[in-house]
């Protein structure tokens, strides 16, 4: 636990230093978008990586957070700092509701994935057809720069805001690794029947997992609205966000502390790089991105962190064989 906390503190200090000292707009944008992607993957990792419940529709919670953040300001006229906790709570609540419906009936694996996808689609269509969400036009939050309005003049402010939540997500993940709740969550992931036999209530544990996961996902949605001042049903509840969240966690290493962050940053760097290198050939960047993704999944099935561990073990084995 101590080692995890030290590493998290170090990571925070380094990023604050980078954000404070860097004058490069490209670098700051990269850091901001990486942190945003990391937050998505970390949120997914709580339920998917530690709880073993592979959701394909995490955009549902992202969208709830985003719309709550926008509507709280537009319709209720509240300050965004005040709206944010409400958006998070609403996201967690939707998580518990969806989890209650699916876990109660024992949906697992691909069935759970399909149902979450369906829920996200239902919400997308609802957001398209309802009037208070602005329908297909979406919602625009008026530009009123100022820290009091959670609209920062530069990338730095958003980096600090996102960093705070990424650090919080890291702390929650570290807590999962060293607490009873986390042990129960992983036990249910590894073998639900065995866990039940020794006193674990799987429904309660999974509901806790989905609530935490959904809360962080709705944070990402709310911050998205603050950064771009715009949300529409396709962005909020479309599959792009769901995929981004799960791919980052899977590539980095599910059920690990640093994997989702590492995966999200790697993928983001890769996407930026291919776009810059092959920008004049439209589509080629996506092809390269896809090929690299396939290679990672093929040769590091346990993600980047898992791959590193296997490599380390392989070297140790070879050394032992030599001795």
């Amino acid at each position, binding site marked *: 636990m101590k080692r995890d906390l030290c590493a998290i503190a170090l990571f925070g200090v380094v990023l604050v230093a980078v954000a404070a000292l860097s004058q490069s707009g490209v670098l700051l944008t990269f850091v901001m978008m990486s942190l945003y992607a990391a937050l998505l993957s970390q949120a997914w990792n709580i339920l998917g990586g530690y709880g073993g419940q592979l959701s394909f529709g995490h955009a549902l919670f992202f969208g709830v957070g985003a719309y709550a953040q926008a509507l709280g300001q537009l319709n209720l006229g509240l300050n965004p700092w005040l709206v944010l906790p409400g958006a998070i709570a609403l996201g967690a609540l939707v998580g518990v509701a969806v989890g209650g419906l699916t876990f109660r009936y024992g949906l697992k694996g691909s069935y759970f994935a399909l149902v979450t996808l369906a829920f996200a689609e239902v919400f997308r269509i609802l957001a398209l057809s309802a009037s208070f969400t602005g329908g297909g036009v979406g919602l625009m939050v008026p530009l009123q720069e100022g820290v009091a309005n959670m609209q920062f003049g530069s990338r730095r402010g958003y980096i600090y805001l996102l960093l705070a939540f990424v650090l919080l997500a890291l702390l929650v993940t570290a807590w999962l690794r060293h*607490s*009873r709740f986390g042990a129960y969550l992983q036990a249910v992931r*590894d073998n639900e029947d*065995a866990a039940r036999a020794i*006193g674990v209530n799987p429904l309660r544990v999974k509901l806790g997992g989905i609530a935490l996961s959904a809360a962080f996902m709705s944070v990402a949605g709310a911050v998205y609205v603050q950064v771009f001042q715009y949300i529409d049903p396709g962005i909020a509840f479309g599959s792009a966000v769901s995929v981004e969240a799960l791919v980052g966690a899977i590539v980095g290493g599910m059920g690990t502390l640093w994997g989702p962050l590492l995966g999200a940053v790697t993928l983001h760097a890769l996407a930026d790089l291919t776009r810059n290198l092959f920008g004049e050939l439209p589509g080629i960047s996506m092809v390269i991105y896809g090929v690299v993704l396939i290679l990672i999944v093929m040769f590091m099935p346990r993600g980047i962190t898992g791959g590193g561990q296997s490599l380390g073990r392989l070297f140790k084995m070879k050394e032992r064989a030599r001795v």
Partner: protein
Amino acid sequence: MSEILLQARNLSITFGGLKAVRDVSLDVPQGSLTALVGPNGAGKTTLFGLLSGFLKPGSGSVHFAGQDITGQAPHESARLGLTRTFQIVQPFGAQTVRQNIAVGAHLRLADRDEALAAAEAVAARVNLQASLDKPAADLTVAGRKRLELARALATRPRLLLLDEVLAGLNPSEIDEMIPVVKKLVDDGVTVLMIEHVMRAVMSLAEHVWVLAQGRLIAAGTPGEVTRDPKVVEAYLGHGAAARLAAQGAPA
């Protein structure tokens, strides 16, 4: 007569047209070591499922320590002190032995460090202390059986339902395991075990229930049930007891 810890009355369950358990009643006295034997497919594991709450009986009731636990979820029964193991071992493969056992210990201990310390103590009781930091998936069959036992033991049960903890072990591993089970009972845990290894049943059990085709057909001390013609026939076929007697085989 000591107090009855587990009491099953007229338990029945049907899967489609198959009556897997029919009208089974049994009592497990506190502090005893009782064995449940029977040929393959007799319904032993199904009966365990009914007692531990993994299956809901079609009819009948289960009482544990005077409380009605019929159809109660397994995790609630575990809290009351009734824990089962599985015949096909079910480790949390991604985790170490210590972490596996700690999940059981967490039932009584909220604190992580206390649970991990308790896991170490339990591991010593089943001779797993050397493997504490191994991933559970790397254990041998014998190791996994011990882990299954340790994890259940870590919940501090009053009654342990052991489903074939000796199956798949070689003779020397069985010899190592028998005293471990015996020690549990000496430490005050009541044990009801499904077992095929008759050597173990004969040396461990005070009382044996025999299940065949979903019904209890005999009960008594190990010596009594092995001499019971009904039991011989359940294992060897109709008329076997008479033929054995005619051949003058030792009873």
